């Protein structure tokens, strides 16, 4: 039985690295005595698959994971037993059985929304903020330098950004951001903010960012669907056509 679960990853759980999360779920399932299905082969591992990775220290309000069980079980019982064995900060929100062999979460999730709180190094008014953001959005191409072991690569980050708004709240700016997520990558929220700071001179203090991913979706024809929502499948059908 393939179970798709929505959960939140908040507070100190935000520091659990994505690579460690599979083990956290596997061990919680074993403590909860929920029989997991395993891959075949030399080195079998439990069939647990997540949606798009959440960066360390970024909270997630609604994330998704697929877990395959060796036998059919009552969903409420699975969620209840599993919840008891999960670290505080990971809360199970909802679960639904999906057809075995359904497309992986990674393949269907293609949009994400973020809420970011960024302190200002210098105070600015809402007009100045809106001006800066508008100017940024009007740019057609926004190159951004990424550094890795292989050296520097410049990426155009503008195409990934679908929506960007901000408001001033005390000595911080609250940013709402929607981005596209795809096979060829995406843009990280801190990259958008760094670019806003550099190109539009917005005085963001990037050392003290607080980022929360408010959702991750199946985006289709201007609509956001949840991968738990059976309606989201319309998206695939039309894709298949």
């Amino acid at each position, binding site marked *: 039985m393939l179970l798709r679960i929505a959960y939140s990853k908040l507070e*100190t759980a935000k*520091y*659990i*690295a994505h690579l*460690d999360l599979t*083990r*956290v779920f*596997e*061990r*919680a*399932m*074993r*403590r909860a005595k929920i*029989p*997991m299905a*395993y891959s075949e082969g*030399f*080195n*079998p591992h*439990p069939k647990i698959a997540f949606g798009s990775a959440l960066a*360390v*220290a970024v909270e997630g309000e609604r994330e998704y994971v697929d877990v395959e069980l060796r036998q059919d079980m009552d969903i409420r019982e699975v969620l209840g037993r599993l919840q008891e*064995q999960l*670290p*505080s900060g990971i809360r199970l929100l909802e679960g639904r059985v999906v057809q075995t062999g359904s497309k992986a979460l990674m393949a269907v999730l293609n949009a994400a929304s973020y809420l970011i709180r960024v302190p200002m190094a210098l105070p600015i008014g809402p007009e100045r903020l809106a001006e800066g953001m508008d100017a940024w959005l009007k740019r057609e191409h926004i190159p951004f330098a990424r550094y890795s072991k292989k050296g520097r690569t410049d990426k155009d980050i503008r195409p990934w950004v679908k929506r960007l708004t901000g408001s001033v709240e005390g000595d911080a700016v609250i940013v709402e951001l929607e981005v596209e997520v795809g096979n060829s990558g995406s843009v990280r929220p801190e990259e958008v903010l760094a670019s806003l700071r550099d190109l539009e001179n917005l005085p963001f203090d990037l*050392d*003290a960012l607080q980022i929360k991913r408010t959702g991750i979706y199946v985006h289709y024809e201007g609509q956001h669907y949840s991968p738990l929502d059976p309606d989201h499948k319309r998206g695939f059908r039309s894709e298949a056509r």
Partner: protein
Amino acid sequence: MSNTTTRIREQVERFLPKVLKPSRYLGAEWNSIHKDWDETDVHMVFAFPDVYEVGMSHLGTRILYHLVNSFPWFACERVFAPWVDMEEKMRARGIPLYALESFRPIRDFDVLGFTLQYEMSFSNILNMLDLAGIPLRTSERGQEDPWVIVGGPCAYNPEPLAPFIDFALLGESEEQLPEVLNLVAEQKKNPVSRREFLLKVAQVQGVYVPEFYQVDYQEDGRIAGIIAEPGVPKVVEKAIVKDLDAAFFPTNPIVPYMEIVHDRMMLEVMRGCSRGCRFCQAGMIYRPVRERSPETLLRQTEELVRSTGYEEISLTSLSSGDYSCIQPVVQEIIAKYSPERVGVSLPSLRIDSFDVKLAQEVQKVRKSGLTFAPEAGTQRLRDVINKGVTEENLMEATEAAFKAGWSSIKLYFMIGLPTETQEDLDGIAHLAKNVANLGNKLGRRNVNVTVSTSSFVPKSHTPFQWEPQERQASLEAKQKYLKEKLRDRRIKYNYHDASTSFLEAVFAKGDRRLADVLEHAFRAGCRFDGWSEHFRYDVWMESFRELGIDPSFYAHRALDYDDVLAWDHLESGVKKRFLMQEHFQALQEARTLDCRLTDCTGCGVCPDRGVQIDLKG
């Protein structure tokens, strides 16, 4: 929660996303214990002077953490050495070293207990004291500072740390540590002077208070004598658990979020090893052999699986293949837990007790390489070190392994052992090639043999404590020779850095005069000396020069039987007479057999203490 802890947490969380592996510094793992500060009488913080993933892999740390917390009136938290990036950020912001569970500053605790697993972590201890804002030397500390105590194998010669520690715990702490903490509780209620308190603590079995022992030196640098003050034992003898089967063992261990070095359940099947390898400190200080019963182990396994959810259980001890019930215990665990995909692993297998069926059983889940430790290249040298294995043992074991499908074999050796000759080095290459040839002959393709050599470090409390370490230049020449000799596409050769082994030897046999060097090196930036990327040999040597101390005096000098050893007032229960006798036997190339198999060898640990070898099979 106090203001301080909230402030520390807030400050740390600001930069945590920017340090490597933030999970190291958070302490809210599954099964971690968070006690109410005001509801507990004694607050201890258990300190491991290395990074989190190393410290959390250490069974002793886990046992003592849960042991102390099993008493309702004690609270025990943890702290590890922050990695260099974290340290830099903490220092820049003036954040004191804090305990993982509560984020409380270390200096708020009553007891700060370091475990001494290896000499190369000593500089980290000073660094952690400094980060905690605790004066390094006991003479500079006040009443509000914690008691700084140490335990673990290097506590059998803690002399280089003497001015920095209030006392050391020798031996097994299951009974001793709670007794000490009860004295601390009493001291908090009805305080007496520091001296009076330490006198009381010194009465507990295995407690060593360095300041009660006066060390005098001769003009040539040797120790003239060690004199105990009245009222404390002349020789401190380790504490020991008589009934291991009934001893405390935590079955609800912490499950870290990040991957640690030994990321699995640990089941301690026995304690001690009486094989009697003459270089091995653990084999001397953990005697006698005491086993746990299969019933106890199976009950503990069930509790461990349920409380951790781990996918692997390791049957640990100094030599688990020697555990008399190993076969039935492994089979039963596999039968019961393989449906849940829980596998069994054995950390080390001896060549002479190697059982390929057992190895296959435990490899059902993961198929990794097999490791054997012949330790020396010829039978003569293996007899000198009393490593009772033969070339035939090795060939039989590897043949069985190749036939069963393994193609990767790791072989561990030591170079620079007492009496080593050219022939012994050639013997290493000879064994490695024979193993590789055997693999080919048995039709294994991709045979690969990894040879690792470490350099012999004479350790206190062993028959080789009187032996010098070989000079670095000579060790390096041997490494180079072996590198040439092992040029073969099927063989890979690794060796340990000789300068690290040299410093290890200096501190393993060091005395109190090294404390100044340690402090100097720490102030000059030394830390994480066990990590090659941070080891600064030149800074260490500069510190020795600066203080006019010759490290070679400690590492390279052959000691006389009538020399006063820096650790003569500390005893593991194994008598010095026995160690001398064993040293003599070594030079005669004569074996001493395991007392489990033949007669008592007279090491001295069993009589008088009401302990004995305890086998369950």
